């Protein structure tokens, strides 16, 4: 199995072998984090530009660390304090950066399809670091790497994805990837936050937290964006938390003793996750962050490690 794509845009377009290659490459790079000297020369002389039009801590930082550990030069661009603030269009800014010959552009944007647009317009490799409510493939990959380490395999595992599925690119990328790897996925949340016809993606739907988390191997809690309340999709944070917040009581009543609790971050403590669960023994939230660096190293290496992703 060899990587042949120029870009990483979605999990939807990948085949199971490509997903496995990404996960395995990331797994083999994990040991770099444990070294005294956290640097290997694999991407020496390559340039990675982080083009972020939305706020981000862990994704941008982990792409930056990943690039630096592989010896690439990493440049961070954020929309505030740049020409984008002067009204330059997204595409003009991207083409300007493209004209400086980067090898990889990592892009986050609030519009679905932003990364795909750049992939068409720029000759360098594009990594989608989140495009609107569409996809966030590296998040799905780091979730998979975490699950693989804890469970040892993917096939036959059951996962509940709980919360604001409708607006979640994390949920979408994970659903596509998990289905391809033979996992069973249930999405759960209040009806206003579950997309209509989501069953077409091959998932089950539940409108009760207790039912969704019973006997699954993995519970993935999603972040509730505060603006959802302003949009009238939930009556109040308190009510949401009461029905959909994961607490120790609900967990011990319904969940398996070896369940994994995941969350893409940042956590709204006391809303979707009680602090005892977020910091508890089932939680792998910080493992996910650690795996995030390995996954982004793997992605950058596969895209830029061999002639900018188009192997001879």
């Amino acid at each position, binding site marked *: 199995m*060899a*990587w*042949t794509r120029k870009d990483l845009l979605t999990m939807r377009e990948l085949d199971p072998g490509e997903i496995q290659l990404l996960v395995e*490459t990331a*797994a*083999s*790079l*994990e*040991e770099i984090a444990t*070294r*005294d*000297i956290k*640097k*290997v*020369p*694999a991407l020496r002389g390559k340039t990675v530009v982080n083009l972020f039009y939305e706020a981000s801590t862990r994704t941008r930082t982990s792409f930056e660390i990943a690039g630096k550990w*592989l010896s690439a030069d990493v440049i961070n661009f954020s929309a505030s304090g740049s020409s984008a603030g002067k009204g330059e269009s997204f595409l003009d800014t991207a083409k300007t950066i493209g004209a400086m010959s980067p090898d990889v552009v990592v892009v986050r944007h609030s519009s679905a399809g932003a990364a795909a647009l750049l992939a068409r317009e720029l000759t360098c490799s594009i990594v989608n670091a989140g495009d609107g409510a569409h996809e966030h493939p590296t998040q799905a990959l780091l979730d998979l790497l975490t699950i693989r380490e804890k469970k040892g395999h993917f096939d036959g595992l059951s996962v509940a994805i709980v919360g604001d599925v409708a607006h979640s690119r994390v949920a979408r990328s994970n659903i596509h990837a998990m289905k391809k790897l033979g996992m069973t996925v249930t999405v759960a949340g209040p009806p206003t936050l579950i997309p209509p016809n989501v069953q077409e993606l091959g998932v089950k739907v539940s409108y009760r937290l207790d039912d969704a988390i019973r006997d699954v191997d993995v519970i993935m809690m999603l972040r509730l964006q505060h603006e959802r309340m302003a949009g009238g999709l939930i009556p109040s944070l308190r009510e949401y938390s009461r029905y959909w917040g994961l607490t120790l009581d609900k967990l011990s009543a319904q969940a398996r003793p070896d369940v994994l609790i995941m969350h893409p971050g940042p956590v709204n403590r006391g809303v979707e996750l009680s602090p005892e669960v977020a910091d508890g023994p089932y939680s792998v939230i910080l493992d996910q962050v650690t795996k995030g660096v390995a996954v982004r190293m*793997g992605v950058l*290496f*596969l895209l830029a*490690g*061999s*002639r900018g992703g188009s*192997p*001879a």
Partner: protein
Amino acid sequence: MNRPAQHFREKAQVLDEAALDRALTRIAHEILERNAGASDLAFVGIRTRGVTIAQRLTAKIAAIDGTTLPVGALDITLYRDDLDMRGAPVVRGTDIPFSIKDKTVVLVDDVLFTGRTIRAALDALIDLGRPKMIQLASFIDRGHRELPIRPDYVGKNLPTSRRESVAVRLREHDGEDRVVIEEPEDV
């Protein structure tokens, strides 16, 4: 590691199972002799077959000397100077679960050819710590060096032409123990 993606057919057998085992035994004795015993020795094999040969050598040393020596696995993909020429690379991970600081590290590979793999392996090793000394065991030395690199221990010197390939076939990977010279099938 040196084989391009084309089909090869066997041209000649160089070592059979018994000869391969004798060469390993001799190298094990040479390592003990050169280092006046096994203290402070550590083995690092270059993936994939270098690791297997390193494990065989440490088993021999354990039988001779009673010492159990650590064996690590080194993946040099991230250190290659020819990534651009090789198409999509596969990283298989470095696993060296011991400190190499102040150790005499015996670096083990199956076939020594241009020396570029060893150059990359030396860089990779030194990034992991500062060994007291690094020695090189190459099971087959087939010549054609492009860098000033010379092995300390050799199983067999095997003059070859550049278009040929040398395959060290090992039970653990290939179901048999022998060394063969191969040539491209299109000739």
